């Protein structure tokens, strides 16, 4: 039976329902704990980084550090633990899985971040060239495993984190190509049931996960050893990976699934798209559907304009009324198509909405009709009126709608004067008049 991909991951950090109340009550304490831990762990972290490698004191310091961070590790089924294995595979829940494992079982994991050498050693990372591609990783992992004193390599065959509660993702094969035998373990992350903050949520960064780990009273990692599994003679890598996955799933009491890392990435993309659609109401499918309804009634108005109005009204009838009554603000009047009834064969005319709801008629260019009136009283040597483009801006639309009546009247009067002034200038320019105060 297949597990839906939505169920595989935690989408929200916090639970819903009455339990959220405990979380709210805990928040002040959590913030204090967070700050205390932050400073203490910074100190210990610095201490650990200057201490020599592989010494007992350093391991003690690290252990204390992790305990202070609230990261506690418990081992289960210790009889299955096998220290001879060079590869350890576990499922993947948080970005700190390998730290938890390394407390009880020294190991390193391939680094996916470009960290400086000392820091990556401290965090149990080893640069195996993950970023340079699968082949480089495989080769450097082989070299690493052939080294004498190297610690075991911890791998997460899932390739990405899950919530760890419902199902495991498909185990990738590359972890099992390196070596015939692997130590298989299952990880389970537990937090206080009263404060069930998800250890890692979809798309969260490691920093966010770290913050919530410091915030939570305790994060208990349970490592359940399953034992050493070896690839059979006739078994393919895929079959072996499947066997390891099933064994891990059985031990953890979860299901197996066929979702791969690529599926998770796709799923995250889909969520991001949906979130973008929700954030931008213009892309909302519901708005689109309503806009199409409006356009059936008003086919001459662009879908874009309808949507812009619909976002405010959320109502088909209201928007239709708005368009019919001309209550729709037009950011770009030039792009407005003309209605068939308005499209007369004469000069094209457009209306500009003015702020004071007194429309001012504006003209657009219609060169074909200019020529027949150029019988002018041209006296000076300016270009013939019919051909020259009017250089005067005719738009007198107000930028804002005044709040008080007197403000609106002032705006109206000044724009009216402006309109007449513009028209006069245009007329003079067109007819090449010489009027004192204007052009001579």
């Amino acid at each position, binding site marked *: 039976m297949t597990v839906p991909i939505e169920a595989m991951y935690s989408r929200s950090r916090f639970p819903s329902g009455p339990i959220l109340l405990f979380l709210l009550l805990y928040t002040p304490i959590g913030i204090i704990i967070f700050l205390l831990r932050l400073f203490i762990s910074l100190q210990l972290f610095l201490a650990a980084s200057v201490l020599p490698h592989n010494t007992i004191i350093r391991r003690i310091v690290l252990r204390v550090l992790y305990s202070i961070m609230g990261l506690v590790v418990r081992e289960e089924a210790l009889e299955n633990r096998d220290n001879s294995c060079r590869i350890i595979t576990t499922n993947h829940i948080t970005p700190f899985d390998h730290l938890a494992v390394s407390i009880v079982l020294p190991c390193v994991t391939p680094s996916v971040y470009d960290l400086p050498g000392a820091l990556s050693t401290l965090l149990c990372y080893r640069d195996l060239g993950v970023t340079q591609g699968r082949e480089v990783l495989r080769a450097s992992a082989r070299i690493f495993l052939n080294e004498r004193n190297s610690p075991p390599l911890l791998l997460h065959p899932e390739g990405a984190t899950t919530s760890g509660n419902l199902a495991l993702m498909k185990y990738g094969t590359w972890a099992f190509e390196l070596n015939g035998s692997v130590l298989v373990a299952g990880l389970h992350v537990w937090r206080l049931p009263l404060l069930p903050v998800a250890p890692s949520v979809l798309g969260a960064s490691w920093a966010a996960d770290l913050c919530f780990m410091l915030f939570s009273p305790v994060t208990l990692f349970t490592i359940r050893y399953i034992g050493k599994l070896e690839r059979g003679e006739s078994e393919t890598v895929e079959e072996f990976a499947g066997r390891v996955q099933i064994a891990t799933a059985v031990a953890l009491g979860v299901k197996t699934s066929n979702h791969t890392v690529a599926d998770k990435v796709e799923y995250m993309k889909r969520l991001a798209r949906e979130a973008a659609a929700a954030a931008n109401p213009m892309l909302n499918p519901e708005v689109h559907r309503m806009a199409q309804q409006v356009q059936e009634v008003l086919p001459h108005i662009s879908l874009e304009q309808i949507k812009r109005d619909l976002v405010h009204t959320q109502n088909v009838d209201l928007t239709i009324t708005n368009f*019919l*009554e*001309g209550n729709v603000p037009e950011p770009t009047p030039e792009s407005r198509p003309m209605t068939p*009834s*308005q499209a*007369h*064969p*004469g*000069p094209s*005319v457009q*209306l500009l*909405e003015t702020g004071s*709801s007194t*429309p*001012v*008629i*504006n*003209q*657009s*260019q*219609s060169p*074909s*009709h*200019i020529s*027949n*009136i150029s019988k002018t*009283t041209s006296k000076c040597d300016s270009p013939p009126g019919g051909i020259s483009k009017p250089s005067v801006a*005719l738009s007198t639309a107000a930028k804002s709608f005044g709040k008080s009546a007197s403000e609106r009247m002032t705006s109206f009067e000044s724009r009216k004067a402006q*309109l*007449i002034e513009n*028209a*006069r200038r*245009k*007329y*003079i320019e*067109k007819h090449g*008049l010489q*009027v004192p105060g204007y052009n001579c």
Partner: protein
Amino acid sequence: MGPEGTCFECGVFPAKLIFPPDYPLSPPKMQFTCEMFHPNIYSDGRVCISILHAPGDDPMGYETSAERWSPVQSVEKILLSVVSMLAEPNDESSANVDAAKMWRDDREQFNKIAERLVRKTLNLPYP
């Protein structure tokens, strides 16, 4: 404002719209407050176009009811219609017989008068 490419080009013709108490059921009235000379404008400035007439107002049946006033019409539509009327007078249903006659028979004289009106509205001297 007079439409481009016509004899009324560049003219700014002030007018008032009078809205009846039962607007939008009844159409508003429009009256130019400046001197106008146009086949569809009475000498007192009242505008005579189909969109300002309620259906049934026209016993002659010149206009189809589609062009008539209805509550879904808007001020914008009225103004557009008036601008288009300035561009193209409808000499079939004339309000100013003299203007209609001149428009038909002596276009040049009509243009001259229009130009004079335009200049008057713009406060420009006219010949």
